[in-house]
């Protein structure tokens, strides 16, 4: 029986050798239950040890392996070869990020944005751990839980044209995480975090393209987080005009 074949076209860019990126095609033995990451691993082990990409958990939770697959940002570990026509699949680095090598992109910009939104619980006064946990109802948990599910895979940034046009935009994942803390009943840092997200290049750049929420592999809805954050911003601004003396 002849072995079925899938064709993988991968962007190659090795800054020490190449001045321009180019596509390289590899033929990979096809199995129905194979994901794109399996194909890349096959290439690296058997065909070309120099192919460069990131991966680790291969179960959709570490967030390392994002790429543009046939033009759409996806996790390579969660994209099955059988989902693609003709078994010919184009794999490119995620859009909007500088490319370090082949499929590996530079995500330092996000790491800076993450620090900027202060992604930790801010309390006016910390309680002692000896006093036990902060009580939180399931309802309160539900208000922020989905936003805490962000795996920082950067697919939403790759999908966001606004970020592509203006990298100063805080962007989907960072806002979703900021909103996660804003909505956490244990957090008391609104006054510190609002000014950060309500800068002009915080949430206001977003024009509701909505693609971030479409590509998110974990069901997080960054668009929702951004819209709600905008509503909070508008309400605060109006309140501060109506009640200039600390009516917040």
């Amino acid at each position: 029986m002849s072995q079925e074949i899938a064709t993988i076209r991968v962007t190659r860019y090795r800054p020490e050798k190449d001045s321009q990126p180019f596509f390289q095609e590899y033929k990979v033995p096809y199995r129905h239950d194979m994901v794109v990451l399996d194909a890349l691993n096959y290439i690296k082990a058997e065909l070309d040890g120099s192919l460069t990409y990131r991966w680790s958990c291969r179960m959709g939770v570490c967030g390392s392996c994002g790429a543009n697959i046939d033009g759409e940002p996806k996790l390579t570990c969660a994209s099955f070869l059988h989902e693609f026509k003709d078994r010919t699949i184009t794999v490119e680095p995620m859009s909007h990020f500088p490319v370090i090598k082949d499929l590996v992109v530079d995500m330092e910009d996000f790491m800076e944005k993450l620090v900027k939104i202060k992604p930790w619980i801010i309390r006016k006064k910390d309680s002692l751990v000896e006093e036990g946990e902060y009580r939180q109802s399931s309802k309160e948990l539900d208000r922020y839980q989905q936003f805490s599910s962000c795996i920082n895979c950067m697919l939403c940034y790759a999908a966001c044209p606004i970020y592509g046009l203006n990298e100063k935009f805080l962007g989907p994942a960072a806002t979703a995480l900021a909103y996660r803390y804003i909505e956490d009943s244990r957090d008391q840092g609104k006054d510190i975090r609002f000014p950060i997200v309500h800068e002009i290049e915080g949430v206001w750049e977003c024009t509701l393209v909505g693609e971030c929420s479409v590509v998110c592999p974990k069901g997080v809805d960054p668009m929702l987080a951004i819209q709600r954050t905008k509503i909070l911003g508008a309400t605060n601004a109006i309140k501060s005009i109506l009640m200039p003396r600390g009516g917040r």
Partner: protein
Amino acid sequence: MAENKHYPELRKRLTPGWWTANRHYAMYMVREWTSLFVALYSLIFIYGLSLWATGSRADFLNFLKNPAVIGFSLVALVFTMYHAATWFYLLGAVAPVKIGRSKTKPWQALILNLILLVIVSYLAIWLVVLR
């Protein structure tokens, strides 16, 4: 830490035609451009009122009967409806209502809002004309 950039940065920039790359982006851009018709209709209506203010009520009414104005307005109506539908859909996506264990889907919000639109439209007509 890695400040030392030895190599030129490779980064694909978006071109003005980026929104042709996929269907979602294209739909988004159409939605954005429909806003031009919303704005133009408003400006044209204000212009019509100015004919009345500087001339007579008949000038205004004739202006409304001008085929070009009607034609444009009909196009604007189509786009406004498109705007309304996408807006309703987004409303459902941004503020889903929780009923029991499940949340409303955006398309359910769309349908509910369309029904609401019919009611609001009738109320408006009643308020300004029929009453």
